């Protein structure tokens, strides 16, 4: 069994992991190990061939693979040690004695040891059974990411007559990709009364290609013997309950499920880290440190981001925290203050703050709201927001000076 020692281990070579690893090197951390399950770095980016990446971080409009290429260049230029084809199977947390990661490599079991760890494993996709789609089990049912990888990495069009389930950004962008490559997208079916995607994506993905968006609809059943032959859809009421009598059958050969992402917290949870049920990711403090000291989290495993730029920003913050952990300058307060979701918001990241440092917060509203305001009542502070949607993350940076006035809780409320 091979052992490797480092100052920090980064699990997951997607955008936030690549950013975290290279910024660790930039901060002067000695040995940085970046561990990736696939045979190449990039995470989900290489298959996201559409533009829209890097507008905030690089002030450039890049495609996913181009953005990944930039990050990968930094990883190699800055001397990060990259370990590909590694499946991590166990995270051992031994407090002051450090962290060990067991992984399966092409040449057998390997154990990696370091005093710090950055967890950037991203998400998995929610599949058809998780959203209550029943019926036959023919070929032709894919999650959006699988369909995307088939089409945009391997060059195989998954189908010709497609029904997309879910109108989040992934569903919208995939609909456009299918349309460009010559498939017919018959409908995008959304159970909510509004789309779960960025406004600009509804415009440029659906309207451009005249793809119908069926709001307040659900797929009830998939029919087909060997291959998908149709999807039965039904209207739902305000409580997402099916309205009987509204069923109709759409002929199609493919159903693509784009029904959201689930953070891959498995190893972290088993190692004892606290999980926030609202995000599905770990509970973190302002250093993006989990409840296991020395273990940090960034990217989609922390919170599902709608912009890669935010994932990179979180990776950079983790790198700074690792550096100050290693040189002993990381100051945790004797007691943490809590940032908590209030009326209208679903979660707040980070969960714990010292009230001493400038901190960037991320939150999402529960339902779409036109002109509204974000209210921090403990600070008597108000921020006006023109149109908030659950799909559009609200990012707010607050000064330590202001945060020092927080006594116990800082509540994030959004009111119209």
């Amino acid at each position: 069994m091979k052992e490797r020692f480092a100052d920090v281990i980064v699990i997951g070579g997607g955008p936030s992991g690549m950013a975290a690893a290279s910024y660790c090197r930039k901060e002067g951390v000695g040995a940085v190990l970046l561990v990736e399950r696939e045979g190449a770095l990039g995470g989900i980016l290489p298959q996201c061939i559409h533009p829209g990446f890097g507008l905030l971080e690089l002030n450039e409009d890049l495609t996913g693979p181009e953005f990944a290429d930039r990050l990968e260049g930094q990883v190699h230029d800055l001397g990060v040690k990259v370990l590909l084809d590694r499946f991590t199977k166990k995270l051992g947390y031994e407090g002051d004695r450090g962290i060990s990661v067991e992984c399966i490599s092409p040449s057998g079991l390997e154990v990696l040891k370091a005093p710090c760890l950055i967890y950037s494993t991203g998400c998995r996709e929610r599949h058809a059974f998780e959203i209550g789609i029943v019926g036959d089990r023919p070929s032709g049912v894919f999650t959006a990411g699988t369909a995307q990888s088939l089409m945009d990495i391997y060059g195989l069009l998954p189908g010709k007559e497609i029904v997309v389930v879910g109108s989040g950004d992934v569903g919208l962008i995939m609909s456009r990709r299918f349309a460009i490559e010559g498939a017919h997208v018959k409908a995008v079916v959304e159970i909510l009364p509004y789309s779960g995607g960025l406004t600009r994506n509804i415009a440029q993905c659906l309207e451009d290609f005249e793809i119908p968006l069926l709001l307040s609809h659900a797929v009830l059943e998939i029919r087909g013997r060997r291959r998908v032959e149709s999807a039965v859809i039904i209207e739902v009421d305000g409580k997402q309950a099916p309205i009987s009598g509204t069923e109709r059958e759409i002929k199609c050969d493919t159903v693509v499920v784009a029904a959201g992402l689930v953070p891959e917290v498995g190893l972290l949870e088993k190692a004892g880290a606290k999980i926030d049920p609202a995000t599905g990711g770990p509970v973190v403090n302002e250093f993006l440190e989990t409840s296991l000291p020395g273990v940090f989290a960034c990217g989609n495993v922390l919170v599902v981001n709608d912009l890669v730029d935010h994932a990179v920003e979180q990776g950079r913050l983790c790198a700074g925290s690792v550096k100050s952990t290693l040189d002993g300058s990381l100051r945790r307060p004797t007691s943490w203050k809590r940032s908590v979701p209030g009326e209208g918001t679903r979660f707040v990241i980070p969960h714990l703050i010292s009230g001493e440092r400038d901190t960037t917060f991320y939150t999402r509203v529960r339902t779409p709201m036109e002109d509204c305001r974000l209210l921090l009542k403990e600070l008597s502070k108000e921020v006006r927001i023109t149109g908030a949607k659950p799909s559009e993350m609200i990012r707010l940076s607050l000064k330590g000076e202001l945060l020092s006035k927080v006594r116990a809780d800082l509540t994030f409320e959004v009111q119209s």
Partner: protein
Amino acid sequence: MAKRGLTCTVCPLGCKIEVEMSDGTIFNVKGNVCDRGLSYAKEECTSPKRVLTTLVRVKGGILPITSVKTTKPIPKELVREAQATLSKISIEAPVEVGDLVLRNVLNTGADVVVTRHTPRPSERSLAQY
């Protein structure tokens, strides 16, 4: 005077823009927070353009295709034709990000470049490790 509602696609903010126009002439644009939104709205109402991202075949690479994009937006009505043109093109591995695939596609003034590097199988270990 006709009013047209648009969603700005320049950045993730997605401003709701309202354009007042008559006979193809724009009289008023409101709702945009920046100048990029203003030029987007004007262009969208007179001659809408899109960046096309699609795929081309690669011979001798680790994968049979690579991703490409137009270097600038092309007229919206030419998107499908440009894709059809590119679907017939095959390039030789290795390819790097930025490699030219096609100059001046359909006389739009936009070039088509590679967006994902695709090495030959033998080069993979060098490229990736």
